[in-house]
């Protein structure tokens, strides 16, 4: 019997009793065939590969990453809390040294969930990676983290949460926003004033195959990672860039995925999207798991694969090469000013309109960051939606300076007395204080 080179912990939580609706892509059946494949392959009998039970994320775990309006329980179902809890378990397995790497095969996904959550968008309500990252910081004091999002859709939620955070490098590879939901993720979007170049967007043309993805890995992602030198690399391992995916247009194969994973060598991988549940997921997940464990994945091949049909068109290579020439500059020579937002007094202000496609909610949001020289700065968000009237979120960041801390308290108190916010959430990361108001 063979043995894993890298010991690997897998959290397989298929949530066999949860769906968005009976025929929705995000339904009970989604990980059924993946589980069948992993079981039939005897993956968990391999020395060094173990399956673990997911934990359940608490309200506090979620509030470290999100402002939830009206409250966590209203936007997150139990399945969301288990998916987030499963990623936390994955992080614990790695941090405690139980395993070298971990793979959280959980659903529903999370990378479209932004800092403010009123409901579900892009099938996501709770950003599982963000919940995990904030857990890593809180519990283990991990500072520098890189998130590489290989889901076919732009990871706009993760981008939003870490927009102002220079210690979290967010790199998203996705099908060009001009051709796919959510329609964002262009190279010019590269982070807030204090974190320019710490958000890297790589929009790829429809039809990109193994060749293109591997080129981007080698020429953009890996050099940036080497320079950033994070303590942990997290892969948001969406699998909807597979050539059989019903809602996207890419040409990646199971072999390509496994190879990409080998290059990236993430400490923790978290499943995101991927809806070709029969023809792709069983093989892609197997490929990723074997690759993470350092095992031979050369035999993993989806039945529908056709080398000619699923190859990458030659013209695309040229286009992608141009991306490879220009995008590293976003990290190595970021612009002086952010593309979006403006400075007003001591505050940096962004206006955002956000549509929650899954729940049909429209949100108008004003995000203000206090431009503090001493710490990351107090965050204040005012949000109005078709579902909830005016909501206020205040966050005193981890390692906040005394000034930002007292400013946070005074704004929150003032808001309770004067302004007409229906719901307010106050998060003090420095003193671990989580308060809600307005019920």
């Amino acid at each position, binding site marked *: *019997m*063979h043995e894993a080179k890298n010991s690997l912990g897998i959290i*397989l*939580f*298929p*949530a*066999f*009793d*949860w769906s968005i609706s*009976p*025929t929705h892509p995000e*339904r*009970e*059946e989604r990980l*059924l*065939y993946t*589980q*069948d*494949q992993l*079981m*039939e*392959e*005897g*993956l968990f*009998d391999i020395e060094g590969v173990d*399956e*673990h*039970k*997911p934990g*359940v994320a608490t309200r506090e775990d979620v509030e470290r990453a999100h402002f939830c309006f009206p409250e966590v329980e209203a936007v997150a179902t*139990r*399945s969301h809390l*288990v998916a987030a809890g499963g990623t936390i378990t994955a992080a614990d397995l790695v941090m405690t040294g139980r395993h070298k790497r971990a793979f959280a095969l959980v659903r529903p996904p999370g990378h479209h969930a932004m800092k403010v959550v009123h409901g579900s968008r892009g099938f996501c309500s709770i950003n599982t990676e963000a919940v995990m990252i904030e857990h890593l910081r809180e519990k283990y004091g991990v500072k520098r983290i890189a998130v590489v999002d290989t889901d076919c859709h732009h990871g706009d939620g993760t981008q939003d949460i870490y927009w102002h955070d220079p210690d979290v490098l967010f790199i998203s590879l996705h099908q060009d926003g001009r051709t796919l939901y959510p329609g964002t993720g262009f190279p010019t979007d590269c982070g807030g004033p204090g974190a320019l170049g710490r958000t890297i967007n790589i929009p790829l043309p429809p039809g990109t195959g193994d060749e293109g993805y591997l080129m981007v890995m080698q020429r953009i992602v890996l050099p940036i990672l080497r320079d950033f030198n994070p303590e942990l690399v997290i892969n948001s391992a969406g699998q909807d860039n597979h050539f059989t995916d*019903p809602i996207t247009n890419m040409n990646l194969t199971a072999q390509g995925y496994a190879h990409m994973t080998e290059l990236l060598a993430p400490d923790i991988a978290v499943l995101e999207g991927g809806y070709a549940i*029969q023809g792709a997921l*069983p*093989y892609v997940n*197997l490929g990723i798991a*074997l690759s993470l464990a350092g*095992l*031979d994945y*050369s*035999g*993993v*091949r*989806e*039945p529908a694969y056709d080398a000619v049909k699923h190859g990458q068109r030659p013209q695309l290579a040229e286009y992608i090469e141009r991306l490879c020439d220009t995008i590293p500059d976003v990290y190595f020579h970021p612009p002086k000013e952010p593309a979006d937002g403006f400075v007003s007094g001591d505050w940096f202000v962004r206006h955002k309109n956000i549509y929650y496609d899954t729940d049909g909610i429209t949100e108008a949001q004003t995000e203000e960051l206090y431009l503090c020289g001493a710490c990351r700065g107090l965050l204040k968000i005012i949000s109005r939606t078709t579902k909830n009237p005016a909501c206020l979120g205040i966050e005193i960041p981890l390692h906040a300076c005394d000034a930002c801390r007292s400013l946070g308290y005074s704004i929150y108190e003032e808001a309770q007395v004067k302004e007409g916010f229906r719901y307010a959430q106050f998060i003090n990361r420095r003193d671990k204080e989580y308060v809600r108001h307005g019920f």
Partner: protein
Amino acid sequence: MYLGIDVGGTHTDAVALSEAGIAAQVKVKTDHADLLASVNQALAGILKTVSPKDVRQLNLSTTLSTNAIVQGTTEDVGMLVIPGPGIGADEFMLCRDYFVLPGAIDHRGSETDRLDEGAARSAIEACRAKGVRVFGCVGKFSTRNPLHENTLGQLLGQKGAPTADGGSDFVTLGHELGGRLNFPRRLATAYFNCAVWRVFNAFASAVEKSLADLGLAHVRVNTLKADGGTFPLAQARRMPVQSIFSGPAASVMGIIALCDITRDSVILDIGGTTTDIAVFVDGQPLVENDGIHIGSHPTLVRALKVRSIGIGGDSALNVLADAVRVGPNRLGPSLADSVPAGAGLPAGARPTLIDALNATGACSHGNVDASRRGLAEFAALHSIRPEVLAASAVEAASEAIYKATQELLSEINDKPVYTIHELLEGRRVAPGRVYLMGGPASAMKEAVRQRFELFTVVPEHFEVANAIGAALTRNTASLELFADTERGVMFIPALRHRENVPRTYSLEDAKRDAMNHMLGHLSEMGVFADRDNAQITHATSFNMVDEGRTTGRNIRVKCQIKPGVAFVLTGTSAGGR
């Protein structure tokens, strides 16, 4: 009258009993070179007081298959393997005559690549040229669709039917081993089933002949399995691999026969070399999620969840720094057993746990004086007071047993679950009682009670609990049903039953079919199975959706006959009532 024989590593135990109690019990030394002789000797001993015509049933637990594997007296097997895409089959090469064939079935049971029959024919030819007579055919996802395995079966001339090129003595098709998904385990299980087939069948025939000679030809013979059940000898002849490692199960079932267990409990069988730990949930023994390992190979053979640790009555005492430990190595029998009364101690005598128990006064087994002297000598060697050494050793043994039990419990409580319901409603196993058996059971009772802080019971007849368990264990059976209503197919791999079902086929239909097929199969084999003991252990139905439309249901059902005993002996005394 029920007969039970447990051929163990050291002793062969036999009992004859009825609801009135134990009518006869025999203990003989096991002759590993000739297990049949041990069985015959035990039978003869029983028949001294029991009339052959009163005996209705014989249940036999034997180490035969295990020994054959350990001693390497198995025969060469031709393995025909169809791995399809995924982890390659070269990783699992179990034997010399191992052939990987092109072909593939996917997780839904669709044929995604045809079986290369030409390659199969030349593989078979190569095996036959070397004189290989038994074959295992195993494909990935054959439990979803057995097409390729069946084709290989036909090429080989199954069930000994002669084919043009000479036929085969025995063929195991992977899907017959049950519906569980795990290709490497299916491979290993098929291999071992073939490898011990001839040895087991020769033994089965010899036992049947002995029974006829002893006037027991009318007796129904069952074989014990590791899952706490029995199956008829006729079936064991086809699935000998299931008879492996039945020893611990015999003991666990013995406890069920001797005590009325109704809640979460811990069972400790303290033997000479090892202590077997089992856990009961709501009075039911737990079955291992995965099958047992044979050698280093995980298999599909179901077993009761039993954890063995290297601590027993004959485990030697160690002193490391100031810490006293017991086991895990065994250095021969205890001084109490090995030193004749009045004789001096051998040089460098090493006391064991039994000697320590003799010294603390917990028991008076064999030569108590030798134990005391041995302990005093060993204590002096390490500058400890003998009574401290004895007490610490007993404490260390119960501590180690306690720790292993806690580990087993947390493993049970941490097992992965797949639905939110299971996760949030997950009930934790919290034992309220400890049952002790095996040689040093009575002597260890107080130490165990103190460490576990639980009500501790040592049942009557605990010294032959294994044979009692063997005698009274009921038949068990289990099967998996898989249905795909988009394809209109229902398949029960273990029974090789495949039929067409309408699109309206539901989870309820599947549950009913699974139960009926299981009970029907048992009655075909002449086994009476009470419907009350049959249970559905897993039932799921998934809507399959394609392009926003529901195309069918993917249904999986598992059912089993619960492990149990024919009747319970509680309250009877040694002589019966």
